[in-house]
């Protein structure tokens, strides 16, 4: 449904996207994860036909985003990052306008239906100016759903929502993702973990890692960290643990107790347990510490210099050059 091949986008001297390729199929929810300015919004703007790439090619729902832009736009529901709504219009009029532009049959009924979906039905006659940020965000999502698009592209869909609404929107996205292709961007890692079937970590315009959230976590868990809690005296336990095959490093844990790391793929826990018990220590706990997606993310993106600042609107104009 979405296929990007070698997308590159330059803003003047700054390269926002660098030869980015990925694919997303029907029934898949793909998460774009990355720090601000990584190129998430730029990619989405290219896929929605808002702007063309400098080079590369992309097809959405089988249509080329440059050559058949109108066909693509008919089939894509898009929530831009800036949540574009007209404050001086009423909620209903706004959605009716968008539905008309998209030639939605029985527009009024459909507007009522999407309002119910995002729980804004009681605000139908109110002016958008009087809506809270979270409500505007939901209205933006409603707008993207009007024409029941095959492909949904949501730029930071849960930003500005309160925790209950976040859960609701995530559930909504999961539902929608069953019969559609959903591409969403986020910088909240737990969100990607909960909602997406596949995560693309993107940094400085390149895809750093692409995998399922579970496998991603497992991949960097290869080198395991284990916490050891001992009852009573623990003098000399470090040497005992270090003697076990596969243990690479022993240190005292910041949470009390000891901590050791193993070589990738080696399960050292049974041997460590045996050695400790044989040496007469009281073993209370032996607990593996998985690296959280947060840690993986930081590991993957930290060794590179911080990306240049981008303002909130995603407007790149101010950035004149990057050395």
């Amino acid at each position, binding site marked *: 449904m979405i296929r990007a091949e070698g997308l590159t986008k330059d803003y003047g001297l700054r390269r926002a996207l660098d030869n980015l390729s990925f694919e997303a199929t029907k029934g898949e929810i793909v998460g774009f994860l990355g720090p601000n300015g990584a190129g998430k919004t730029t990619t989405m703007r290219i896929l929605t036909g*808002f702007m063309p790439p400098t080079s590369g090619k992309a097809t959405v729902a089988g249509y080329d985003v440059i050559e058949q832009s109108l066909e693509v736009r008919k089939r894509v529901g898009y929530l831009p990052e800036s949540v*574009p709504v*007209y404050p001086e*219009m009423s909620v209903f009029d706004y959605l009716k*306008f968008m539905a008309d532009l*998209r030639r939605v049959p029985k527009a009024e009924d459909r507007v009522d239906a999407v309002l119910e979906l995002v729980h804004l039905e009681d605000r139908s006659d109110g002016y958008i100016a009087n809506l809270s940020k979270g409500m505007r965000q939901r209205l933006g999502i409603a707008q993207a759903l009007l024409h029941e698009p095959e492909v949904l592209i949501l730029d930071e869909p849960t930003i500005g929502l309160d925790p209950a609404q976040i859960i609701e929107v995530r559930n909504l996205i999961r539902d929608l993702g069953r019969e559609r292709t959903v591409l969403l961007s986020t910088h909240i890692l737990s969100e990607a973990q909960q909602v997406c079937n596949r995560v693309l970590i993107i940094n400085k315009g390149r895809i750093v890692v692409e995998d399922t959230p579970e496998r991603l976590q497992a991949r960097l868990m290869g080198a395991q960290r284990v916490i050891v809690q001992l009852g009573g005296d623990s003098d000399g336990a470090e040497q005992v643990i270090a003697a076990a095959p596969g243990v690479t490093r022993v240190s005292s844990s910041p949470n009390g107790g000891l901590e050791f790391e193993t070589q990738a793929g080696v399960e050292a826990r049974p041997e460590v347990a045996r050695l400790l018990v044989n040496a007469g220590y009281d073993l209370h706990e032996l607990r593996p510490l998985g690296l959280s997606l947060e840690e993986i993310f930081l590991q993957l993106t930290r060794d590179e210099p911080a990306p240049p600042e981008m303002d909130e*609107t995603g407007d790149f104009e101010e950035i004149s050059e990057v050395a």
Partner: protein
Amino acid sequence: MRNIWIIANREYNLYFASPVAYMVMFVIYLVLGIFFYLNIDYAILAQYAPGVQIVLAPLATLLLLAIPALTTRLLAEEQRLGTIELLLTAPIRDWELIIGKWLGAFLLVLTILVFTLIYPLVLNNLVDPGLDQGLVISGYLGLVLLSAAFVAVGVFISSLFSNQIAAFATTMGALIFLWWVVGPIAQVLGETSAVGQFFSFIDLSDQLFSNFLSGMVELKDVVFSLSLTTLALFGATMVLDVRRWR
């Protein structure tokens, strides 16, 4: 066509959802009424029968001043709010968007013009043997063509800005230049210089509109005002296109 109409319809209705349309209409009708009264008063004193130009001449100036207030929002506001991203990813073509925006504002100007028809009707009863109908028709035709061009210039300039005040000031400056400045420049340069002839040709008030006011509907004037409209709308479409590619 339907896309154009959807955009135009929203713009037209939006004018009445804010004080803009009411304020502009109020000021235009108030000032026009005062001028009308004074002109009639003066005509009675000076013992002559006034023509329709006592309505149309001040009306043209009022429109020139009012149109920037009506057009400045059209695209500048979309660019400030970010809603332009929504429109440019909706399945409509850039030129449909531009023409829709233009049409919405143009229809409002036409609405304003329709209500001013009451003055020629009143005047028709005041003067003997009534007004020259031809002059009324050609005068209004001139106003409609002028408004179309003014609104198009406003749309073009609005597309260049995301700041409404900048768009307003620039539109006002451009219209004032075309209306009041071009003529004197042409006179100073004289008929013999090519530049002078060019300025004389694009002089909207002394050439184009005074021709219509005096009942002369010349093809070159019609073509010129329609060309200016088309050129400005084409320019606005190009601006949108360039923004996509930058």
